[in-house]
């Protein structure tokens, strides 16, 4: 991955392709690379839909190799939803294929003079960019069907749906999965709108004739990967819980904890949770002939995904994730899995972030646009978005805009981005991360890596009640590092419990690149990523006042435990003091 491909969509005479060496960006991948490039090259005060913004698409350091779990793709830009820096992350096949084509990043720059839509094809011969307005307003599913007819199903695709073309702030970028369906999404922050503003509808990646990326020390790499896979397989979360039930295994547990945001974050427990739990979902899928165990990219050994079929056994959507089941389920008072699956399908087809859409519909329900629990109404609202009606355009721009338009006070956003499926009053540490993350309200920004393994912030006695601020800081650093490797974040549990598995990851990086990194180096990488992101946001106008939850979380007690958000502002301001 020694090349960066730059495509200037606004060049005189038509899109212009430049290929260069990684240069100053050598050794970076995934989020480390996208955040470095956005920080260095995107003016923080630019309009997110303007010519100066860039879309940086980067596989991880180990993508395209035989390393298990290495198929995550990072997509970075200035976000039209938050106005700050954004890294959105997706599974699927794109990262593997792009890495094997030798690209550390593809960068979309500039802006076309008119509204021509383009498709880009990248293969071992080079890059072809062609106008193709026949793709206009195609849903992602029809788009991929069309691609299949022309290219077959062994390529990988990156695309936007109608939402991205309409430049909606909740628009996602889709990546095709192992079955060549557009089910994996870089969802958060409106990255699809930025791709749409560049006039790019579709990127086809064809690695035919290319080989797996080879390690500098193949024997050590193979041994490290073997240890890595063994560690993932033997751990009860990655080896059993996730493959059996998927991420929706969390529904019953978070609900029991009283931290399951229900009906627009008004309560912490949903009476319909058992009907939409991971247990019920897995049984529904298998009894109808779907799959409860499935990998979203080749090389995944955790296999937390699945396929959801309708009552007649026909494919409807991929197994909805916990976040989607919550956002379209409990957050909207809906307890019907078939309806939730349909909403997931529509989000994927129109190219929308399921978290933002579910939170937005929750706000719309609070505004009285629909009733809580009315699944049919929710489906119709998402269809309005896909059609681009005036109501649809409001909803498609997210919860914050919708709340403003309809005069709703209780809008669960930070820096304009909707909160995910954990109420910060129940689990206050996640509230610290929501408030302070560079990404806006984000649950994956501060993920689980044992800080005693990484040695972040010095040695911490695990028996003492370490403050939530310190934990959030350490987790955000560790996550930034992991996001740079291209690894799926679900490795986190196995790494936390099994030091030998974390060492296997470091050994893989070292043997692949011929390095001698230590855990401290991984920590420094995480810190440098966060530093770039914080600096960008500061230059874009963000201050400590933006690192806050909406006021009502401090004033409104959450049933059933009756708790308010209690972390003080001055403590939130300490998160990035290291």
């Amino acid at each position, binding site marked *: 991955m020694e090349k960066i491909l730059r495509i200037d969509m606004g060049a005189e005479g038509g899109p212009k392709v430049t290929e260069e060496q990684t240069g100053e960006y050598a050794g970076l991948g995934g989020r480390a690379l996208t955040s470095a490039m956005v920080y260095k090259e995107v003016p923080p005060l630019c309009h997110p839909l303007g010519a100066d913004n860039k879309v940086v698409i980067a596989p991880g350091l180990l993508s395209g190799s035989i390393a298990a779990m290495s198929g995550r793709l990072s997509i970075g830009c200035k976000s039209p939803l938050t106005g700050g820096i954004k890294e959105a992350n997706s599974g699927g096949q794109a990262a593997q294929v792009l890495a094997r084509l030798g690209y550390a990043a593809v960068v979309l720059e500039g802006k076309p003079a008119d509204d021509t839509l383009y498709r880009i094809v990248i293969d071992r011969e080079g890059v072809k960019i062609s106008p193709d307005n026949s793709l206009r307003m195609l849903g992602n599913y029809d788009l991929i069907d069309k691609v299949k007819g022309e290219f077959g199903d062994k390529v990988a695709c990156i695309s936007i749906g109608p939402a991205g073309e309409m430049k909606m702030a909740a628009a996602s970028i889709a990546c095709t999965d192992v079955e060549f369906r557009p089910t994996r999404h870089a969802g958060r922050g409106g990255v699809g709108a930025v791709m749409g503003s560049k006039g790019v509808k579709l990127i086809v990646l064809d690695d035919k004739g290319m080989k797996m990326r080879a390690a500098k020390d193949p024997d050590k790499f193979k041994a490290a990967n073997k240890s890595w896979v063994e560690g993932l397989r033997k751990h009860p979360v990655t080896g059993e819980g996730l493959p059996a039930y998927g991420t929706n*295994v969390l529904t*019953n547990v978070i609900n029991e904890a009283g931290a399951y945001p229900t009906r627009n974050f008004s309560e912490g427990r949903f009476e319909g949770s058992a009907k939409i739990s991971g247990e*019920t979902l897995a049984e529904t899928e298998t009894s109808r002939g779907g799959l409860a165990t499935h990998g979203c990219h080749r090389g995944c050994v955790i296999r937390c995904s699945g396929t959801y079929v309708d009552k007649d056994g026909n494919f409807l959507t991929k197994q909805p994730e916990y976040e989607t089941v919550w956002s379209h389920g409990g957050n909207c008072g809906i307890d019907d899995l078939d309806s939730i699956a349909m909403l997931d399908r529509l989000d994927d087809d129109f190219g929308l972030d399921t978290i933002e859409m579910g939170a937005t519909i929750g706000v719309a329900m609070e505004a009285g646009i629909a009733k809580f629990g009315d699944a049919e109404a929710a489906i119709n609202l998402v269809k309005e978005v896909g059609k681009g009606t005036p109501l649809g355009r409001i909803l498609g721009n997210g919860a914050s805009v919708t709340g403003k338009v309809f005069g709703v006070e209780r809008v669960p956003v930070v820096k304009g981005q909707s909160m995910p499926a954990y109420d910060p009053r129940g689990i206050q540490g*996640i509230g610290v991360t929501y408030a302070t993350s560079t990404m806006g309200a984000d649950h994956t920004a501060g993920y689980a890596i044992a800080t005693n393994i990484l040695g972040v912030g010095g040695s911490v006695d695990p028996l003492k009640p370490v403050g939530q601020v310190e934990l959030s800081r350490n*987790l955000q650093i560790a996550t930034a590092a992991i996001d740079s490797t291209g690894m799926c974040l679900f490795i986190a549990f196995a790494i936390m419990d099994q030091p030998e598995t974390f060492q296997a990851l470091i050994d893989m990086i070292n043997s692949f690149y011929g390095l001698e990194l230590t855990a401290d180096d991984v920590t420094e990488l995480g810190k440098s990523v966060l530093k770039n992101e914080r600096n960008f946001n500061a230059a874009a106008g963000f201050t400590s006042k933006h690192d806050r939850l909406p006021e009502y979380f401090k004033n409104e007690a959450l049933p059933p*435990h009756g708790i308010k958000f209690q972390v003080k502002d001055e403590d939130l301001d300490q998160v990035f003091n290291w």
Partner: protein
Amino acid sequence: MSQTENGISKDPEGKLILKIKSGPSIDFSDLFQRGFQVVTAGERSLKDFLSTELGLLPSYIDERVQTMFLDGRAVDDPDRAVVSGGSTVSLSAAMPGLLGATLRRGSYYAAMRKEISYKARSVKAEDRNNIVTVKLFNLMAREIAPELVLKGVWLSGKDLAEFLKGRSDLFGPLVETALLNGKETPSGNLIESLSGMERVFFRIAE
């Protein structure tokens, strides 16, 4: 006293025995996510309760039950958490992600959820009853439920009715007979009867 009308039982409490044919078994684990009831007396530690009432070995509790709640609060030390009548106990395997790690018993990240962590509190005598509700989630249900249904458990009639209604295609292939309050009962009448019952003692006979 047993009351029936057109074969539909009108009793508030019942006893259901399903005689299962040999061969593939029914997965009852989904039923246990809603909770079953244990009749108990006095107070004891959560660990003791799990050993005595569910028959769980201490090693199983220590190694497999990685997430536990008592009255909706995350438990870190089952030896010190106190179960009494009126309590709700929920058990889960290790959960994924940050939130899963945070809720895990004895978690390094427990500080992130200290406001919902279990703390011992006294319960007034007049607020107690003698029923403990136990919920089993994910792998806990898969691993523990099979033995429980052979011994027999008390369940909400409504929950049991809903569970069986969703699996009515199993009657015939897998269920030989359904004895409700000692009488053989066809599936249609069975489900309607169970819906009206507050509590049902449910057991599988092989």
